[in-house]
């Protein structure tokens, strides 16, 4: 069965494209499936404890199909920030190097929906976890839960792997990036 959870982004957020540079970080318009899975695991531990997640929820979350419907409108700006990088000298002393980094920040108009296909036995527990999600990726990328329903993702609305892209849909509305 499918669960569809809606989230509001109350402030700007920044889900970096995997394998992009830390010092010049482009972002995705919404978190990718891996970020969603990690957030569900982290929040699952908060709600049910490490043992319950390891034994019961993790096998489900690892294999559950995840679809992400981005907000209706997303604006992306580049922000200049102060960044720190640990480095080690010859005497093995660790020092923090300061530099200027550029990181994109996104602002959303409208809710984002996460679709998760799970076995019926897990529905109630995963509803609790979806409700307790507070951020995606960085803890400063705040997210606020709005509601959860039993509905499946519509065709052409969600992020998908290229291999699953329906050849009859135009590519233009898609934002292409390496997500996992």
């Amino acid at each position, binding site marked *: 069965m499918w669960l569809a959870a809606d989230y509001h982004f109350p402030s700007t957020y920044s889900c970096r494209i995997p394998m992009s540079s830390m010092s010049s970080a482009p972002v995705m318009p919404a978190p990718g499936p891996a970020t969603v899975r990690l957030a569900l695991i982290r929040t699952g531990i908060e709600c049910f404890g490490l043992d319950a997640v390891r034994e019961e929820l993790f096998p489900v979350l690892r294999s559950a199909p995840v679809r992400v419907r981005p907000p209706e409108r997303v604006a*992306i*700006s580049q*922000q200049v920030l*102060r960044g720190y990088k640990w480095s080690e000298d010859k005497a093995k002393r660790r020092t923090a190097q300061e530099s200027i980094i550029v990181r994109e920040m996104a602002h959303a108009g409208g809710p984002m929906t996460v679709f998760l296909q799970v076995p019926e036995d897990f529905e109630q527990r995963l509803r609790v976890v979806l409700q*307790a999600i507070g951020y995606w990726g960085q803890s400063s990328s705040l997210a*606020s839960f709005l509601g959860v329903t039993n509905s499946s993702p519509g065709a052409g609305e969600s992020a998908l792997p290229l291999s699953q892209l329906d050849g009859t849909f135009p590519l233009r509305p898609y934002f292409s990036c390496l997500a996992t």
Partner: protein
Amino acid sequence: MTENAREPIYEMSVNVRVSWQAHSLSTAGNNGSNRLLPRRQLLADKTETDAISGNIAKHHHAALVAEYFAADGSPLCPACRVGDGRRAAALIDRPDYQDLSKEEGQMIMKIPTRSGEYALCVRYHCVGIGADTERWILFVKNQAEREKRHRAVLRALRDSLVSPDGAHVATMLPHLTGLSGAITVRTGVGRSPLYSALEGDFITRLRAMADETCRVYAFETVDAFYTLMNDFIAMSVPALHPFWWSERAEQ
């Protein structure tokens, strides 16, 4: 608030619309010129607006919390004790600070001054006081110590809104001309709702989310916010996660 005396708080969120006039709280470098650039952000409705970085707000909040911790006798880590956020070069004796102090002559700089209404969201994870929230292990088992730290965090949060701090405040201390919004409180496991104050109906939206474990306290003025925060400082305590209840019962 007072009727819920000493009620444990799991998480608190502050959703406010704040008006600051004639400030330069957050800038975005100078691009090699003698003109400091204001921070800008494109919004989803295609307008480009002035913005203030949350990083600088967190930096000043951390400094304020460290002051309150020191005043209360709460322990501070070596980095916090010296305000080491790598932002104050003088504090950590960096060589480039020495170079700066030797620089001769004055440079004329153009610093932008801005005014506006800003939407601000803060999430305070009260249950995480004295705990590792990755593995959910409670390290500070003395509840009185946790309460002291909780009060320090709330005081710093209150002060950072009623007495704004950021870049260039020595010469351009902002004029605070308005503060309204809502504080949401979650008393059990879960999130306290956050909703952007850029939306005109944000208080109505937040009020509609109130339930048995989620309380919403709206305010219209800076003094109402101050009074509300003082009530939380006096009457609230950080919640214990259910995983720690058995540990507490054994004590």
